[in-house]
């Protein structure tokens, strides 16, 4: 029975995996918010509340292998769900935010800003849009090497206004690279509504200007996101070039924890709360008899446990030594510690 496909070619265990992916992201972010309130985590936290289906639905259909020869994904700073699916663990996640010595970036970057090429994860930098440029090159390399791998970039509606977004997309399109660009159209870029970002109603309208495919999907429906992404990935793998996906969703929390969402109409928030991607999927799973309340509750519980164990362990670990800040700037140039922290120099003639 587990092998039977129920929807979108997915089996029961796979549907559970999707559900678990979203539940895990939500649980991890909630735990993180608690830690931030406790003063354990500093810096900005960007949540994916309400848009977990985008992260999970986009990552799921990729070749996720962990051995450096699968597909490559560049998440935004909000895409915990995608990063977990690509193979990063909640433990790594908390280590990142808690800047542990054991974290993937060894304390150098926060949150999802780490790169793990074996898992096909390219961590974003601050400048939004930039990852389209980088991914254009990743997928150019796939073409040059004759590999049938695909690269997927997640990006926000706001990022589409950057020159980087344009240059990266146009370059990949011009060279028919196997790249998928998924715009998470969550209505806001920080406090800026999409209507101030651009005059267009849908980001699919950008596609003709690059000569690429486009598709729009309900970003709160994980199956819809997955199916649209799968089609895009298949086209890319078949040599049909770039696809621009628009995932319509809503950012239901502040841009980061300090943003109280004062600029958002309450009714709009309520409307989108009703469309919560996890609850919606849960309801559908039950309605279609793909799962039982007990099973799904157990998954949520497991996610919470996994997150708690990870968070609890990460908290006990130590931060890196300060002096490690000197490492890994270059492959072969050693930085010196500041002279004021060493035996003092004697610059006199000796």
């Amino acid at each position, binding site marked *: 029975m587990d092998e039977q496909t129920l929807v979108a070619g997915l089996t029961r265990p796979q549907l559970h995996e999707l559900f678990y992916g979203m539940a895990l992201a939500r649980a991890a972010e909630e735990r993180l918010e608690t830690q931030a309130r406790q003063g354990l985590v*500093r*810096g*900005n936290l960007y949540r994916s509340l309400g848009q977990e289906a985008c992260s999970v639905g986009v990552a799921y259909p990729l070749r996720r292998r962990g051995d450096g020869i699968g597909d490559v994904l560049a998440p935004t700073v909000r895409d915990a769900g995608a990063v977990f699916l690509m193979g990063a663990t909640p433990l790594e996640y908390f280590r990142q935010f808690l800047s542990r010595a054991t974290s993937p970036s060894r304390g150098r970057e926060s949150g999802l800003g780490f790169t793990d090429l074996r898992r096909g994860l390219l961590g974003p930098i601050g400048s939004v*849009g930039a990852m389209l440029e980088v991914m254009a090159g990743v997928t150019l390399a796939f073409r040059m090497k004759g590999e049938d791998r695909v690269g997927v970039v997640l990006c926000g509606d706001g990022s589409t206004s950057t020159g980087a977004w344009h240059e990266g997309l146009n370059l990949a399109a011009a060279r028919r690279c196997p790249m998928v660009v998924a715009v998470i159209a969550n209505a806001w870029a920080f*406090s*800026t509504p999409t209507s101030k*970002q651009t005059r267009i109603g849908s980001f699919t309208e950008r596609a003709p200007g690059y000569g690429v495919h486009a598709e729009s999907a309900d970003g709160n429906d994980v199956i819809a996101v997955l199916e649209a992404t799968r089609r895009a990935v298949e086209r890319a793998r078949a040599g049909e070039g770039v696809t621009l996906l628009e995932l319509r969703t809503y950012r239901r929390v502040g841009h980061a924890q300090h943003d109280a969402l004062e600029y958002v109409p309450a009714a709009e928030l309520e409307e989108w709360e009703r469309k919560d991607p996890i609850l919606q999927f849960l309801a559908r799973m039950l309605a279609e008899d793909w799962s039982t309340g007990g099973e799904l509750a157990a998954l949520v519980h497991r996610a919470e446990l996994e997150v708690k164990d990870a968070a609890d362990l990460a908290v006990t670990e130590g931060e890196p030594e300060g002096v490690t*800040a000197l490492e890994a700037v270059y492959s072969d140039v050693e930085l010196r510690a500041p002279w*004021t922290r060493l035996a003092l120099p004697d610059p006199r003639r000796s």
Partner: protein
Amino acid sequence: MPRTKPEHVTGSERGEPVTFLEAIGEGLFEEMERDPSVFLLGEDIGVYGGAFKLTRGFLDFFGEERVIDTPISEAGFTGAAAGAAHMGLRPVVEMQYMDFISPAYDIITNYVATSRYRGSGPLPMVIRGPVGGGNRGGPFHSQNVEMAFFHTPGLKIVYPSTPYDAKGLIKASIRDEDPVIFEEHKGLYRAPFLRETLPREDFVVPLGKARTAREGKDVTIVTYGLMVHRSLEAAGVVQQEDGIQVEVVDLRTLLPLDDEAIVASVRKTGKILVVHEDTRTGGIAGEIAMRVNERAFEWLDAPILRVTAIDAPVPYSGVMEDYFLPQVTDIVTALRYLANY
């Protein structure tokens, strides 16, 4: 007019001490009131009031045409500011974090900086925003940007350290006929110890003039921004513990550099330490060293030395960031070393 002024820009009017952030807010607000050609553009500066809430309430007061929420297009809106300046306006661009000035590097260095030289006449515009580390912001929300532009003729760069200077300098920058990059250290924005009562009346602080933040005869520190306060703290320590009298020169404007002030102090003390938060190689200490060599070499009783961040991206970990940044103890060590030299 029924519109009410946002409270955080009325402190000085009410005779209350203001923070660094409020002082800049006041400066912007006053210039906008005074001159209808001044307007603001940047990301989330309108409804939200800016990531640091510096322009909170400005939109309601001045309206949508003078407080413009832009798309995420640093190059686009910086270039647009130049265009508007050509048409007689005086734009003030906010970078949400100054780190994001990087996509505008081309338009700033090639268009904005060369405009007057190429014959366009004046190009008054200000690009301002938060800079600096210590906030666990990681590599992309902690940068200092002065050295990206210090080498570009045609630009001015301002980096204040006190509410008084911040207000006086932002006002002077807006009135200046040349493009100005204005850096505001996040660590100063709300620092309680900096609260200061400012004159009620209009004042400016002229660009290009340093300030002696502390007088002394033994060693000169040349510094700016947050490091002025670290330097003053270190100066206090060595005064008390070693009797070393340190003179602290706060540059305030980095470009054009106030040679006169630097040279005068070095001729007095014979010893100079440059302190900057920015990374080491290619930092402003170098230019200062050259100027001192050119004009005060014979007065030097010790090598020109510097205390700076290390040559790395700004790490996110607090422990690492503390290691990365110059600390008061580093300055103390350097001062003692120079005093004993």
